């Protein structure tokens, strides 16, 4: 049994096209022998068939009936032909009204377009089979292809289809010849409307179904009035803007984006939807090396545009790295990740962001004003998705007002602009268009795209920007911080005995979530530092080479896996034990240090910031502490030497005292 229309969702069918009923009424008006369209006889070789009408008569009648001018009448007539109420007798594949003596005829109501019944593929198969029966090889190429497809899909019904086609053909023979011809024309016209030849569109392509039948009169029930009341109340509550302001904004938007709109302006090299050639899409991939000129121009429109485009953001990141103010963008990205990320890791992410960016003595400290800091800190006691919104907005504005302007004048941007490509518009002939249509292929699976995205992020994190405040000597990576902060350039290991976290002042312990769950197999310390550095996007420049001096091997692998895991939010504290050669410890400065200052060689517990308690705790092997404060307390007595400087945030002490983790 064929599955019936499942789009109904159990409701009565509610069509969308209100115009069909109205066109039907117009068509019926045209039938009037006195006031309708003049009908002629079509002369064929053997016989004559009545009720043919000329295009010009139709146009004249419509213009007269609706009191409109000829062009509009012609457009309306074309619409009627496109829907299939009138079909052309010559040139049957082009459904348009020609205002000359070309002949048309009215379609029989059985073949009128209707929305109640979906057009069945079975009927189409029967029609094609019938045409094939009449004369072998009469099917066109696209019809042939569809016939083959239908044969595959409807194989179980095929005998029935062939038999039904034969029977319909034989039944047709019982009719008189002119009637047979007319019926064939009618059926052919019907299928031209509903299965358009390639390169044309069906007028019955109407998109989603509406929930309401526009042709139906609505009963005035209490529900109806309730709806009207709600609607008007919402209208009143809507905030209003002066029309001069809103129109001004619209005008500004349209003048800026006029050339970038593919509807209004030709898309270079060519619009893939029209020509089936995907060069445009490949040139504008999210992380393409060389962007197009139009894309680069769009970055100059507003800061939002620059950030929303992944390529633009990468360029901006590069610029900020050169200016050593990458932490702003990193913080912004971290906040975005918090807002849009999974709910289970949200709390840890929020804390981590705080400790990386906002806390005093944080490795990548960003500069926000006191009031925002207050709000943020208060909010972080009960973290939720939007807890860092205020700070994020502040940083956004800062970047917009300050860095953006400088970026647009910077050599990085000018370089990108110079290298940007402006593709030539493509011109295709008919045959080439057909070939393109045949060569259509589906794009990459979203799973693959997501994997690529994640790999990119991990690579970015692995060879991330410099952490200016932590020019520590220790080479150990900070895997858990890799996602947002990257790994600070570790200088040569002074003490090979233990590897330390570069950003050690930031608490390694709370962040251990991701590390904990890293399976041991992923942590390999072979010299695969090479790949990670080379994976860095090509926009990386020589200045980054300092990063590459470090042995990136262990950290890149870990960073990759950890960043992945962080995203997944795994929580398996049991694994951390095997993380031995990693890092945690730190000496590093407990405070934020200005750029270029050597890190302190020894921990300086005395320089504890008043606001925070800083525990110095250097484990012999670099143990990563799980995020729970309880575990932290458990682990701290185990540590003998080495030190982990944790920044314990004020609310944590409160919570610790309360005994809640």
């Amino acid at each position: 049994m064929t599955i019936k229309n499942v789009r109904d969702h159990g409701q009565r069918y509610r069509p969308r096209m209100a115009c069909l009923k109205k066109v039907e009424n117009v068509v019926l008006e045209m039938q009037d022998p006195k006031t309708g369209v003049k009908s002629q006889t079509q002369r064929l070789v053997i016989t004559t068939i009545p009720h043919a009408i000329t295009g010009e008569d139709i146009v004249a009648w419509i213009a007269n009936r609706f009191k409109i001018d000829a062009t509009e009448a012609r457009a309306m007539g074309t619409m009627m032909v496109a829907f299939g109420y009138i079909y052309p007798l010559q040139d049957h594949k082009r459904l348009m009204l020609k205002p000359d003596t070309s002949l048309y005829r009215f379609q029989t109501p059985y073949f009128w377009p209707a929305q109640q019944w979906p057009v069945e593929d079975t009927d189409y198969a029967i029609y094609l089979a019938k045409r094939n029966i009449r004369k072998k090889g009469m099917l066109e190429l696209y019809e042939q292809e569809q016939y083959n497809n239908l044969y595959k899909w409807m194989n179980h019904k095929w005998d029935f289809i062939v038999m039904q086609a034969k029977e319909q053909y034989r039944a047709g023979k019982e009719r008189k010849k002119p009637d047979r011809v007319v019926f064939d024309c009618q059926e052919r016209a019907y299928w031209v409307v509903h299965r358009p030849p390639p390169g044309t569109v069906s007028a019955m392509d109407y998109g989603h179904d509406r929930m309401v039948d526009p042709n139906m009169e609505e009963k005035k029930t209490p529900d109806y009035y309730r709806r009207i009341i709600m609607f008007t109340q919402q209208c009143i509550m809507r905030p209003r803007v002066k029309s001069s302001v809103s129109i001004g904004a619209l005008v500004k938007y349209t003048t800026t984006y006029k050339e970038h709109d593919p509807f209004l302006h030709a898309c270079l090299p060519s619009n893939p939807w029209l020509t089936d050639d995907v060069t445009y899409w490949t040139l504008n991939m999210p992380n393409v090396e060389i962007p197009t000129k139009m894309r680069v121009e769009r970055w100059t429109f507003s800061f939002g545009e620059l950030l929303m485009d992944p390529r633009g953001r990468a360029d901006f990141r590069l610029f900020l790295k050169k200016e050593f103010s990458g932490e702003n963008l990193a913080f912004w990205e971290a906040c975005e990740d918090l807002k849009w990320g999974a709910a289970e890791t949200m709390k840890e992410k929020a804390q981590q962001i705080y400790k990386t960016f906002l806390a005093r003595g944080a490795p990548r400290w960003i500069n926000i004003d006191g009031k925002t800091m207050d709000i943020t800190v208060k909010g972080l006691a009960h973290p939720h998705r939007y807890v860092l919104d205020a700070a994020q907005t502040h940083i956004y504005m800062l970047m917009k007002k300050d860095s953006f302007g400088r970026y647009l004048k910077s050599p990085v941007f000018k370089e990108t602009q110079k290298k940007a490509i402006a593709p030539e518009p493509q011109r295709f002939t008919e045959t080439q268009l057909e070939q393109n249509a045949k060569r259509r292929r589906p794009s990459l699976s979203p799973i693959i795209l997501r994997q690529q995205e994640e790999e990119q992020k991990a690579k970015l994190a692995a060879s991330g920007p410099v952490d200016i405040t932590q020019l520590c000597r220790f080479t150990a990576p900070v895997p858990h911080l890799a996602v947002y902060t990257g790994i600070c350039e570790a200088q040569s290991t002074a003490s090979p005995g233990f590897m330390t976290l570069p950003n050690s002042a930031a608490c390694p312990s709370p962040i251990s979530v991701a590390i904990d769950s890293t399976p041991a197999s992923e942590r390999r310390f072979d010299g695969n530092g090479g790949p990670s550095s080379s994976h860095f996007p090509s926009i990386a420049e020589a200045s980054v080479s300092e990063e590459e001096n470090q042995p990136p091997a262990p950290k890149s692998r870990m960073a990759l896996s950890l960043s992945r895991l962080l995203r997944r939010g795994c929580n398996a504290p049991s694994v951390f034990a095997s993380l031995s050669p990693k890092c945690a410890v730190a000496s590093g400065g407990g405070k934020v240090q200005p750029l270029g200052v050597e890190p302190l060689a020894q921990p300086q517990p005395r320089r504890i910031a008043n606001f925070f308690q800083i525990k110095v705790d250097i484990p012999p092997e670099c143990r990563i502490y799980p995020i729970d404060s309880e575990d932290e307390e458990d682990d701290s007595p185990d540590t003998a030497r080495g030190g982990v400087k944790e920044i314990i945030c004020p609310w944590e002490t409160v919570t610790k005292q309360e005994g809640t983790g």
Partner: protein
Amino acid sequence: MPLSNNKVADDGTSTQPLQEGKALVDSLIKAVACYRHLASCIGGCTDNSSLRRDLWQTRERAQTLALSCRNHLTARLRDKTLPEAERKETEQLWVAFSSCLELLHADMCKVFTMVKQFSLANNSTMVQTGIQGGTTEVAARALSLHGLQEAGDGPQTSSMEGQELSQLEQEIAQVDRTLEDMELKVNVLRWTVEALGPQYADPVSTDSASLALLSIDEEAAQGFCSRSQMFAAMMLCGVAIFAVVLSVCVVFLV
């Protein structure tokens, strides 16, 4: 309820139940094909009471056939002792039967809406579709009657039409129920049924006449006609010139 028709039992001339089933399904397919042809005339300029009557009769016939078909096929498919090959064939018939019934159902729904819109009793405007002849032959084919039945055109009153409409509605509901029942009673897996016949049906006949009509219709704009005429004219001229040359030669020789 449609009248039970003894004719059905006479259709399958062989005693084999399979042949009988096939014959039933074939007749049903024929009836549905004719019904479609008739339905395409509704609302057109030849729509009159005789067309409506033909429709009604064809529909009755189709429903009777459907009923007997269903009983026959259901009985066979539920028979556990059926050999494998025959079961496959019966399943084929089953699929054909259910698709046919779906087509009939769709056509009946369309006819129902159309009859409501183009009511004979109210003298609604009919569309000038260019059809000229009647459809009695088609109906006769469906009913397997060899003679034309010329029954008189009774005037259609609105009450009669209303009655017919409600009856049609009931019949549609009944076919719906039949379809559902069928699916419940017998489980035929569609993906196990394979087509036995060829992908392309053999051309049934050399119906060159209507073909010629259509092709001329299509190609008139291209001037193909004139080209063929020119070719013929040239041939004629060539022959004439040859004849003239021959006669001149003869004259000279003589």
